[in-house]
């Protein structure tokens, strides 16, 4: 999966599964402040990511992820470890 496809898929999942307003989606958006993703939504993101990208997120890896762009890069790194 190309990086652009990964980003597109993440956006689609945020809109459909977490019901984030499409207009709020931008790489610089703060996950908590701008997108309203709280600690419970993160629990659901674990499930959504495993079901769609086939890897398990780890709670300790989430501490550095503040912006949506951080999240894109995290998923890209996990999908393409090398």
């Amino acid at each position, binding site marked *: 999966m190309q990086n652009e496809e990964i980003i597109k898929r993440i956006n689609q999942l945020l809109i459909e599964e977490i*019901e984030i307003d499409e207009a709020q989606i931008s790489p610089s958006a703060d996950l908590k402040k701008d997108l309203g993703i709280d600690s419970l939504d993160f629990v659901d993101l674990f499930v959504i990511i495993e079901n769609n990208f086939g890897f398990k997120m780890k709670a300790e890896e989430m501490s550095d992820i503040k912006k949506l762009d951080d999240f894109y890069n995290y998923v890209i790194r996990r999908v393409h470890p090398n």
Partner: protein
Amino acid sequence: MGIYSVIGKNLVEVKNSLYEGKSGIIFDPVRKEMGFRSALTGMVERPALKGILDRRMRVGLPVQGEYAYLATVEALNNAGIDAAFMEKNAVGILYGNDSSALPVVESVDILRKKKDTMMIGSGYIFQSMNSTVSMNLSVIFKFRGINFTISGACASGSHAIGIGYLIIRQGLQEVIVCGGAQEINPESTASFDALNAFSTRESEPQKASRPFDRDRDGLVPSGGAATVILESYESAVRRGATILGEVAGYGFSSNGEHISLPNVDGPVAAMQLSLKEAGMDASGIDYINAHATSTPAGDENEAIAIDQIFGKSRPLVSSTKSMTGHEMWMGGASEIVYSTLMMNHHFVAPNINFDNPDEAAARLNIASHTIPFEIRAFLSNSFGFGGTNSSLVVRKING
């Protein structure tokens, strides 16, 4: 008040069904495939709340919470209680609920398959707890008063109203949202089916629930949710609210005997206490909404108990479970809604399928068909496993 029931999704539909003696019972082939002894159940469409409630409010809400949400929206609207009122006043919630089986089964199924609790997601914990309805609705509606669930088996909804009445009478709260909710799914009733307590009249689903009838062979499980807004008289008058009826008395007792077999003395004690609390004699009751679920022993014992207290005045009696099936945790609340609808629309709903009485039922004045009638006061019985009993007396204001 408000309701989401197998005989209607709002008060108007339910009132019409009660008047017409309409049954909400179906044959569910899924239960047969699963190995149920009886595939009969009450059934109502699952509410579609996407676009009405946001995702966070929906993911923690089990199906009986969805029913309860819609019943409570209708009840608050009819009571004229809006967000502004709830912001200024501490509105409480006491709801009857005694299981939330499906989310427990589903979440453990995920764990067994994935072998990782992180794959369960965030919603199941809030769906799984017995207090799921009161916890979810208090967040959705922003209630700031008393907030907990009452689990008293098949008397849960009735006890919730009774406790709400006591708290308001004590002066601790002015408005409490009371009710009862019951999930409808095979997972929650499989172990009950194992007790041989359900009717197996599968060839005639709508004739299967036949309380007090000589040929009854068991109950039919059902569900939904019912909400009543309890409010102090002074607060209701101050707001100019339409007062549908007054909770005049709450009686309770425990049989102190068998876990599932009913007796006579326990229900007699509960009914007597409710009359005493209401300051009324038996002759003041015009209608009794019986608990009668269509089981041989339960209906017989209740008929004997009613006859002991009401043998002289012989008020009209019907079990609306003949139409709805046994709504279990919801039933004590829904039957207050059904009876209050009858009181406000001047009729007594029929005990359908009552073709031949047995010896005990023959002593009662059972309404086998719809009767135009002025109810000034009614008594509603709810009994449950463990021998818990609850009786509520409701009367017309100044009636």
